Structures are given as structure tokens and as C-alpha cells.
């Protein structure tokens, strides 16, 4: 007895098996069910999962899905935070976990060619012998895939200084909706013609499926210093963020964690955070030896001035990794505080951080939920994590309502609805808060130009009243509650 329907289409399964081998096509409900989730609270069951081994096999799978008129959703490691890999209209999931080869490393030209299933951190490890690394470093970098990073234009702590994925991708091999393989961009830094590579990065799997990625590599900085500053109050820490950037220092990373997050992290990695502290800032500066030492000194002085109760500093790799350990595992550690969390991804102007954070705490209080904030303070990219128990009837709905309220706070403060996780499924209806009908129309035309229609990752990015039916009415409710001018 199943509480979900699996649409079975024997002809589709047979064709897929012929294309990629029987072993690499899943259609049993007990196999499909583990492809209904990612790291969010969204769910959607595919009707088949394909694990191709090559670009040709991806193209073949796409052709077959098109022939059977079912949508295709690409999936990397399923660590995404906007429901991007969830097949909300069913159809075929193409999982890239077997396409995990680093095809070429070209140290002279500072680039590498990788398959979409390669793990983010593996790229940096593979090129480390040449003194190079791949800069974007999402917190899930030990697990997330390059394909997923490209789709969501993933960020990470170090994007403050180095930019997000889009600044590090030179070219892409893609599969079109017709199932053809073609290259966008190449190994040159600025190819002529339209920047189609830039268009595809961050398109959340709605335009094409990426099968090869040419990434830019950077020289490892000569020197890196990590500072950890502990504050009594979140407000103090927020002011320190503005002060540091106001001084003209652009740290490689500037991260904040609040009390709840510190509590979870402390349990997980025993970082030695005082239990009564209000917030911790993690500041990393890198560059030439002299420069970093100067900047570290200024940061230290500023934090002192603004009332930091404790400062730790790490120069060696081991010391720095120890300081970072808490931040990198923070999200998963939240499982220690509550069975579920709902992570939000809003952006606000840096100067508005203290006010918006206060608003976030107030809203959570009003809704009766605990919140843990862990985020990229340097670029104003907030990640409030609402802690709840999804087994409590109605809790999920109220959390989504609260999420809408918080998103609205960000937008009202002059910010936007996503910094790095993508719009995906859950935030698509907020798109109309920041884009006019005309803006969305233009985006829709881009999608038409690629000829995808609903072929790739349907139900994502664009506001829609149809799709995963029950949920979109749910979203409408949430948006209605967010304010009378929600649909400006």
C-alpha cells in the first residue's frame, strides 16, 4: 500500500534502459522515493530515475523523455536549498552522480574541465598540486556537485571577494531540449557573441542540462588569516560588519552566526563558543603577506572598538580550519535543535542588516518559532533557519507563512529573495515582488528561445498558479498574509 501514486510508463522505462543499461534506470517505488527530497522540506516523486555515464547518454535520455512527453529534472547530490532537484511534475530525474570525472586540468591556462557530478571540493583538491583552487565554496562543498552549483549559481562564504559560480565558469557543454549536445563559451575568457554561458549559469535547470563545465581556477593566495570575533549582541556584530567594509577592507569572507546556531555548532564540533554570547563573526582576509597582516590588524582593532568580548586568530591551515569547522557544519548541526528547519535565503543592503535581523527575530517570536541565523554578513545575504517539527500538524504551513513574511521584510528593505540558493520551487511566487509583469515576460521569452517549454525542471523559477497544485494554493495563502501590497 502506497500513499503516493507512481505513474508507470513501461515504454518509457524500456527505452531508457535500452539507452543507459538496465541497472541504471530506477522505477521501483521504494527506489524512487529516495529521489523525492533534497535538503529542503519540499517533496516530489519522479516516475523514473536515470543515472547516465556520459554526455551522450544524457542526450539520449532527454530525447526519450521528450518522445514520451515527460519532463526532465537534473539532480546532482540533492544538497540544494530551493527544491531545484525535486521533480515537482514527476517525469524523469537525471542524476549525475556517476558523471564525476575531472576530464582535464590545465594549470598554465588556469582552467579545468569537469563533468557535472564532480564534487565541488574535489576540484580544488585535484588542482592543489599546482597551487590553484576553485573559488566558490558553498557550505556543502564536501558533498554538492558542480552541475548543481552551475544550475543554482551557487555562492559561499568566499563569494564576498571572489564572486559566485557565474564568475568562475568559462564554458558549458549542454543538452538542448531536442537532445542535441552543444558548447556554449569556450576556454577563452571573453568569447564574442552573446554570453549564453552566463545565461545558463543560475537558470536552475530550466533551460538545458549541463554535461561538461569549463571552470576558471585561481592561484592560492600567498597568505590567509582567519579571525573569529565573539560578541554579546547580534547588533554589535552587525555594526562590526558595516564598519569593516566601511574601512575599505574587502575580506575574502565575512560570516555571522547567532546564539541558536552557536548552540547547535557547539554541540556538534565543540568549537568553544561561550554559551551566553550573542553572535560570532568569522572574518577571513587573504592576499599578499603584508596586506593581510595589515587588514587583520585593522579588523581586530575595529572588533575591539565595537565591543567584541573575545578574538581568536588563525594563521596556519589547521588553525584556520578549526575556526571554520563550526561554520561549515552549521546547517546540518541544526538537526540537533529541532527535527526540521526551513532555511531562507534573502539579501538586504549591508547597512540594513541590524534592522532586518531585528525584524526577523520579532516575526519568529510572533509566529512562535525559534530561529537560527547563520549567514554571509559581508554581502548582506541572510540565512534565517526556522526551527520546527514537521510532524506537528499545521507547523509546515505556518513556517511557510513566516518565511513569506521574512522574505517580504528583505524586499521592503530594498533587498531581494535569493542570494545563492536559487528561486526554485518554493520562492517562485515571490518573483512578482521584485519583477514586473514585463520583466517576467522577458524571462519567459528567453525560456521560449531555448525551446524548453515545460521540458526541463517545470514548476521552477516562474510564478505559477498551476503545477504542484496543492502547494501553489498554499503559497498563495502565504503571500496573501505577507501584506496587502504583496503583488505590487
Amino acid at each position, binding site marked *: 500500500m502506497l*500513499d503516493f501514486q507512481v505513474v508507470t510508463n513501461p515504454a518509457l522505462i524500456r527505452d531508457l534502459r535500452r539507452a543507459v543499461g538496465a541497472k541504471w534506470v530506477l522505477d521501483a517505488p*521504494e527506489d524512487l522515493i529516495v529521489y523525492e527530497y533534497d535538503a529542503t522540506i519540499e517533496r516530489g516523486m519522479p516516475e523514473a530515475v536515470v*543515472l547516465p555515464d556520459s554526455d551522450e547518454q544524457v542526450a539520449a535520455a532527454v530525447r526519450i523523455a521528450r518522445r514520451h512527453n515527460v519532463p526532465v529534472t537534473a539532480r546532482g547530490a540533492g544538497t540544494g536549498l530551493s527544491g531545484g532537484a525535486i521533480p515537482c511534475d514527476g517525469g524523469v530525474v537525471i542524476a549525475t552522480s556517476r558523471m564525476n570525472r575531472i576530464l582535464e586540468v590545465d594549470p598554465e591556462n588556469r582552467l579545468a574541465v569537469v563533468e557535472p557530478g564532480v564534487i565541488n571540493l574535489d576540484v580544488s583538491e585535484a588542482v592543489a598540486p599546482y597551487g590553484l583552487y576553485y573559488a566558490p565554496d558553498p557550505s556543502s562543498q564536501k558533498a554538492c556537485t558542480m552541475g548543481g552549483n552551475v544550475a543554482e549559481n551557487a555562492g559561499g562564504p568566499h563569494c564576498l571577494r571572489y564572486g559566485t559560480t557565474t564568475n568562475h565558469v568559462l564554458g558549458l557543454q549542454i543538452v538542448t531540449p531536442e537532445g542535441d549536445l552543444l558548447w556554449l563559451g569556450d576556454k577563452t575568457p571573453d568569447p564574442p557573441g552573446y554570453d549564453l554561458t552566463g545565461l545558463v549559469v543560475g537558470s536552475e535547470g530550466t533551460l538545458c542540462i549541463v554535461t561538461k563545465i569549463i571552470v576558471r581556477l585561481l592561484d592560492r593566495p600567498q597568505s590567509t588569516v582567519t579571525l573569529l570575533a565573539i560578541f554579546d549582541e547580534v547588533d554589535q556584530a552587525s555594526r562590526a560588519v558595516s564598519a569593516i567594509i566601511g574601512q575599505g577592507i574587502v575580506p575574502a569572507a565575512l560570516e555571522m552566526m547567532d546564539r541558536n546556531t552557536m548552540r547547535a555548532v557547539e554541540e556538534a564540533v565543540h568549537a568553544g563558543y561561550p554559551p551566553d554570547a550573542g553572535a560570532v563573526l568569522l572574518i577571513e582576509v587573504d592576499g599578499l603577506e603584508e596586506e593581510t597582516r595589515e587588514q587583520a590588524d585593522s579588523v581586530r582593532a575595529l572588533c575591539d572598538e565595537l565591543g567584541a568580548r573575545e578574538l581568536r586568530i588563525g594563521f596556519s591551515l589547521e588553525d584556520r580550519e578549526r575556526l571554520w569547522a563550526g561554520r561549515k557544519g*552549521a546547517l546540518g*548541526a541544526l*538537526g540537533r535543535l529541532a527535527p526540521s528547519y526551513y532555511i531562507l535565503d534573502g539579501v538586504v543592503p549591508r547597512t540594513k542588516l541590524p534592522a532586518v535581523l531585528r525584524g526577523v527575530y520579532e516575526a519568529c517570536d510572533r509566529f512562535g518559532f525559534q530561529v537560527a541565523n547563520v549567514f554571509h554578513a559581508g554581502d548582506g545575504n541572510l540565512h534565517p533557519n526556522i526551527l520546527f517539527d514537521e510532524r506537528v500538524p499545521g507547523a509546515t504551513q505556518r513556517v511557510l507563512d513566516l518565511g513569506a513574511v521574512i522574505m517580504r521584510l528583505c524586499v521592503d528593505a530594498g533587498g531581494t529573495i535569493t542570494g545563492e540558493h536559487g528561486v526554485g520551487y518554493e520562492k517562485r511566487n515571490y518573483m512578482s515582488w521584485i519583477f514586473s509583469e514585463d520583466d517576467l515576460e522577458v524571462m519567459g521569452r528567453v525560456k521560449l528561445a531555448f525551446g524548453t517549454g515545460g521540458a526541463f525542471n517545470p514548476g521552477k523559477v516562474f510564478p505559477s498558479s498551476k503545477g504542484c497544485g496543492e502547494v501553489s494554493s498554499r503559497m498563495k495563502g502565504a503571500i496573501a498574509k505577507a501584506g496587502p501590497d504583496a503583488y505590487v
Partner: protein
Amino acid sequence: MDRPAGFSGPFVRQRRIRAGPNAVSDADLSRCVHCGLCLQHCPTYTETGLETESPRGRLYLIKAIAEGRIEATPTAVGHLDLCLQCRNCEAVCPSGVPYGRIMEGARAEVLANGRTPLAWRLRTLFLREVIARPGRMAALAACLRLYRASGLRWLAERVPYVRDRVVLAPTVSGPTFPPKAGVLGRPQDKARGRVALLTGCIMPHAFGRVHEATVRVLARNGFEVVAPPGQLCCGALHTHSGDRPTARALARRNVDAFVEANADAIVVNSAGCGSTMKEYGELLADDPEYADKAERLAGLVKDVTELLAGLPLEPPSGRVEALVTYQDPCHLAHAQRISSAPRYLLSAIPGLRLVEMARPDRCCGGAGVYSLAHRDMSLDLLDGKIQDVAATGATMIATANPGCMAQLEAGLRRYRLPGRVVHVVELLDEAYGRSPDGV
């Protein structure tokens, strides 16, 4: 837990995992927030690329079965069965999901609910009727000894079709550890303490030399070593296989035997056994007569490397000139979180150079009887492991668990590589110059 409206069916009620006495707790299961940080640490996920063979996927399957969303079909049970229970995921989980406990509970439910695959049931029968019984174990060991001594093994491992099918069978050679109980070793000077040694099921037959080395090294470090009479197999393999009744029966016997011994510590030189004995409190939590005793006893259990590394170690007098690489036994590094103690002991040996292999804490594929039950996966993992070992150039692989030792020995034979597989205490013993004091 709320079930979807209109959801019913008599068979579903029966097959809910949480329904049974081995109940996987809701609190344990809901700790997983499916962040995915376990994936790259899971040997079966990285080998297959399948979410169904990942820790996150398996937890989700267990949950889905518990909630009645899917049935415990052979496919679903197969995914649970392919897990090595290496618990690497548990060690890296930021959320602290007690994966080992959940998987053991889920397997116990699967086994209790009678839809277990035949191979699994046969395995359980073998574990209960042979491994848990010293007499039959000795007979099996005698057969394996003959298999090797007669040259049959040599032959079988050279026949192409047969080779892969037999290579993982454990080797039994060398002297059997005398099955005597009582005092095994005494220190020359005054004793630092008295420790009780778990002799175990297969160790005395396959790795008697490790026990002998353990006794000598402990005596050299000032311990009187006793083997409490009446002790049996620790029950680790039974727990892992889901046979909790047998595991509990064995645990109760051992609790009696070791309480009687009244030692300062219980020393285990097999990581898998140590891990299970440290969890005796949990295993017998529902037994009013044994719960407290088991909990107290569990607190006394120490891996031999853990005990020695915590001492002012008697400095080794002799040298062991060798390039050694260390394989972390999963149940030492992940289940017991001990990884620096064995390395510390190795580094204390004059002449010995320790060279780390890539991913030393990745499972070698041995995993108890896993190598016999899932030969293909086991061989795949072993192949990767031997490549990592070969890349170090080491001539010796040190580890701290009989399952790993047997598996790594098979790996060396499979690739016709020279080299020795040793327990950490054997190297320490060699460094002590096999001093006669004590035995």
C-alpha cells in the same frame, strides 16, 4: 505520527518497523535533515552513485517503511542489507544521527517480521549456530586450517572462475590461542592493574598470535591479564545482522563472566567487539536484571590501543625497521572515535616509519561477514583499498581488528603483493623484543 487520511490496510500495521520491540525511535530518525554531508563518506554510495545506497537514502527508506509509505520489499530490504555498517556517516554527521543504532534496530525489525531474504536468514542461522558456539567454531576453524594447509586454498585461488569466489574466506593458520581461562600474563614488577581480555569467537583460531602479543604487551606495561572463564562471542556480528535475541543472550553471558572477573578494565583487541561491548548498556536496556550491570560493564571496556595510549607507555627497547601504513578499523575510528591512539603507539616504536594512505578510514570491505554476503561490493572496496595501500609503498599494513586483517590479507594475496598485515600490538610486541617477562 499522523497517517494520510484514508490510509489503512491490515498488513501495513503489521509491517511498521516501529511496531516491534526493536522500535527505531522517531526521535532518532527525525534527526536526519537530509543535508547530504554524509554522501561522500559512504563507501556504497561512492561506489554506486545511487541514493538508495546512501546513508541519507537508507534512513529515508527506514522512515518510509516505519510510516507505512512503502513496504519492506526485497528491494528495500536489499538496500538496508548492502550497508556495511561502517558508521563513517555517523562520524561525519553534523546533526548527530545515531545511524548505527537505527540500522541495527531496522534490521532487527526486518528479521523479526519474517520477510527477510533467504541469504540473510541463512547468515543469521550460521552466526547463531556456529559463530556463537565455541565448539562448532573450533570445528569450522579446523576445516579452514586444513583448507589452507592442504594447499587447496593455493589451488582454488589460482583457478580463474573460482578465485574471486573464495579469496575472501578467512585464513586460519598459526597456533591457536590456548583456550585456557584464568591468568594469562603477569608483570615482572608490581602490577599497575588487572585487566580482563575478551578472547572472542574467531580471534583465538585465526589470530591467536595477536592475543599472545596483546598479553605480552599488557604484562610489559604492568598489567595482570586474565581471561574470565565462561565468556563467549561478544555478539557484534549478531547485532549487526539484526539478531538481537542471540546478541542479548551472548551479552548476558559475558556480563556475568566479566563482572565475576572483577577487573579494572576489560581489554578488547578487536574493534568490532569493543564497539559492541561498549554498547552493551543500550543492548540490554530493557532487561531489568541486566540493564545496570551491562551499563557499568560497558564503561570498563577499552580497546587495547586506547588503554595503552593512555598510559605512560613503557618505551620499546627494540626497533622495527619498516615502512608501515595504518588502516583505521571502522568500528574503532567511527564507532569508538579512536584514531590517534593506534597512530601514537606506532609512532612510539623506534625505527618504524608511518606513512598514511589516502582515506585510511574508508572501509576495506571486510565488515564482519559482509565480505561473504556481498562479495562483489566487498571486492570493489578491497581493490580500491589495496591501490591506496600500494601507493604508499608500505611493506606492512597495521590495523586493529580481525575482520580488517583477514580482508587485507586476502587483498594482498589477490594482487600477489608482498607484505604483512599486523595488529598494532604485534608491532609493539616486536619492538619489546618479544621479551619473555610475563608469559
